[in-house]
């Protein structure tokens, strides 16, 4: 029994590691969509930030500088999305697709021209290095809690952010206004609320959160950027947001379910015996994604987002 504890804790830690990037993306979606702007560019923003984080860290030798670079690109991309969808009331899906496509091409190009490599960047200073992790040694050896003994700062930040975002959305004046804008911007406008300002803020803030998701991949789990990075995690985040009914805690719950599937997959790959061994590896690999689809089919009829989500807001002239 005792010998199982390290394994259990390691599995949970692994699940948390898997959770963080997706959670950031989902929270970014929660932020943006509660103000009525759909952001399917979460994926592309993650990819951009993952790369810029590594670049910053490479240039300076300091992971924190990389973090700043990643946040910076998040702000830039968020401003771009807001400029198109809020300022000009453009189509939110098209803007999002454009940013995603841009991320595919531009980041590949930057990777090759800066690092002279294809596929992956050289290793850089990162938050996942044993020395950079947050050590809570007293937790070690305790079942479940032990998983939290050695996590990166980014994972902690993602978890704390769930609480913070919940508080902001449901217990502050700003949150009330954000939700009012997402539900009925015309009502908000007639009460003297600056709808555009709120939307700009929410889109950029949401994009920065997505950027953290990218950073959690390249500077948290790994120490380098790989060209296959993001790999649909932004979209899983989006799905988790919907599954979680556009709330921070809901999104967290949804992602934990996905994370379990992910850990199960890793576990099964390594240790499957008997019948389980007959199931092809591809099945386990696709498990989290299938669960995403399943969750959406099961829940999408019931999940109702903000009433004016995705509807461009135009002031009457």
């Amino acid at each position, binding site marked *: 029994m005792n010998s199982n504890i390290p394994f259990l804790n390691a599995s949970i830690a692994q699940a948390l590691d898997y959770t963080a990037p997706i959670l950031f993306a989902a929270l970014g979606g929660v932020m943006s969509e509660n103000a009525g702007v759909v952001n399917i560019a979460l994926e592309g923003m993650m990819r951009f930030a993952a790369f810029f984080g590594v670049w910053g860290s490479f240039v300076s030798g300091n992971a924190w500088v990389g973090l700043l670079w990643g946040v910076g690109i998040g702000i830039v991309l968020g401003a771009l999305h807001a400029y198109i969808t809020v300022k000009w009331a453009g189509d939110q899906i098209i803007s999002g697709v454009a940013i995603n496509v841009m991320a595919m091409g531009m980041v590949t190009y930057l990777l090759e021209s800066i690092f002279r490599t294809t596929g992956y960047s050289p290793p850089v200073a990162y938050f996942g290095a044993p020395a950079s992790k947050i050590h809570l040694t007293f937790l070690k050896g305790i079942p479940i809690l032990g998983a939290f003994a050695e996590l990166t700062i980014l994972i902690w930040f993602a978890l704390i952010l769930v609480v913070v975002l919940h508080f902001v959305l449901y217990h502050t*004046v700003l949150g009330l206004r954000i939700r009012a804008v997402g539900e009925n911007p015309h009502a908000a406008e007639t009460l003297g609320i600056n709808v555009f300002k709120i939307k700009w803020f929410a889109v950029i803030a949401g994009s920065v959160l997505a950027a953290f998701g990218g950073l959690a991949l390249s500077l948290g789990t790994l120490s380098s950027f790989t060209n296959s990075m993001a790999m649909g995690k932004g979209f899983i985040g989006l799905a988790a947001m919907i599954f979680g009914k556009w709330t921070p805690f809901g999104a967290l719950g949804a992602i934990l379910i996905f994370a379990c599937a992910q850990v199960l997959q890793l576990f099964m790959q390594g240790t499957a015996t008997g019948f389980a061994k007959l199931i092809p590896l591809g099945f386990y690999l696709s498990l989290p994604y299938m669960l995403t689809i399943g969750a959406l089919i099961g829940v999408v009829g019931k999940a109702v987002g903000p009433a004016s989500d995705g509807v461009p807001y135009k002031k009457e002239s």
Partner: protein
Amino acid sequence: MKALEVKGIVKQFPGVLANDSINLSINKGEIYAIVGENGAGKSTLMKIIYGLYTPTSGEIFVFDKKVDIKTPHDAIGLKIGMVHQEFMLVARFTVTQNIVLGDEPSKGIVFDYKKALSEVKELSEKFVLKVDPAEKVANLPVGIQQRVEILKILRRGAEILIFDEPTAVLTPEETEDLFKTLMKLKKDGKTIIFISHKLKEVMAIADRIAVLRRGKLQGVVEKGKTSEVELARMVVGRDVVLKIPKAEAKVGGTVVSVRDLMVKSKRGIVGLKGVSFDVRAGEIVGIAGVEGNGQAELVNALIGFTRPVNGTITFDGKELRVITPFNIRKKGMAYIPKDRKMRGLVLPFRSRENIIMGQHTLYPFSKNGVLNSIEIDKFATKKLEEFDVRPRDIHTKARNLSGGNQQKLILAKEMSMEHKFLLASQPTRGLDIGAMEFVYHKLIEEKEKGVAILLISLELSEIMGLSDRILVLYNGEIVGETTPDKTTEEELGLMMLGLKRQKRVAQ
């Protein structure tokens, strides 16, 4: 003291002069009505005053001071509040959240919901407008939602209250409640601007009445020195016969026969509890009742949107097992929906496209799945002329038509399909006098052609004027059957409220 003065207000929209140098002077503490047909420029003027539109030119004075109102925020600051025609409420928020939004009590950045609750409770008591501060707005009936709107602007300290067609969505009882509230607000010294096209209401509540027509001010009259007839003349610009033309019914055979029809409402409760009636060729059967007493369920069952729990519908002697909009229309049913924008028209479509909807698969409008533009345009041009839809341009999008013209377009569409039965659900809802007159004449015309008509209306005058037989719907049941010459509006009113029942002759 003048509460509000506008001088030479002009608002030019692309192609439309919505306000043409309008001058108004409104005294503090009066109820000032502005009447006019749809599209006369009333709402535009109010939106200018509330900072939602910028005027092309003109000046506004509030409490004798020249002001510049660029946003609603400015208007609120000048103590101007507006209850919009379409309520500006966040359905998912509570009453309290809606009322305090934009000016929330807080501790630092934290929203102090407890304080907000008690503030709203106080406010509601002070103005004797009862609401449950913790209830979600989505769960409230329309009349109470309007109360929330009023409280919202009162909390902002509004002294000048603008009501844009406030009774359009209310039941008669809710309207009466609203009028009581308005009188009370007036007594408190508030200035009220009341926008309407219902002359009866204006005569009941206003001190002075300004009439707008096609963007121009026609005149301002005192209530005591005018009459409904004179107002109607000013509004329409000619004499109007508000009286509904009467036509003798030449009743033929039964077209639609409904037996023990039981239908569930959207919320899953039984909204229609087993009703039976017949509609015969050449007669108008009026269904009177307060909204929400089973009308929607009846309509949805007849058009095939909802499958009845029980009961039968017979069309032209044949019982219909399964009704879909497609098969019942093929049998010969025309339908004027109560909600023009939802069910009546495809708003982004042009007149020419809307007018052939439902017949678009038929020759000559299409052949082998390809639309024939020339035939469609020819047909549309002819119909717009026949039904007096303005503008006559067949390329106008339905969204850009006024309410009256949208309704005419629907009539043009529905009447041009072959039909024996016409289901008219509140066909004059939200229409001005001119358009109302048009609808009445069309209904009579249809009846004379021998169409069986089922008229559902909330307006008793309409029911009394048009129907050959009247059924009263209350709580999902028919509680009375009568004819216009054997009853009065008062008696119908009592039955509609469930206070009086009448035995029906068995069908």
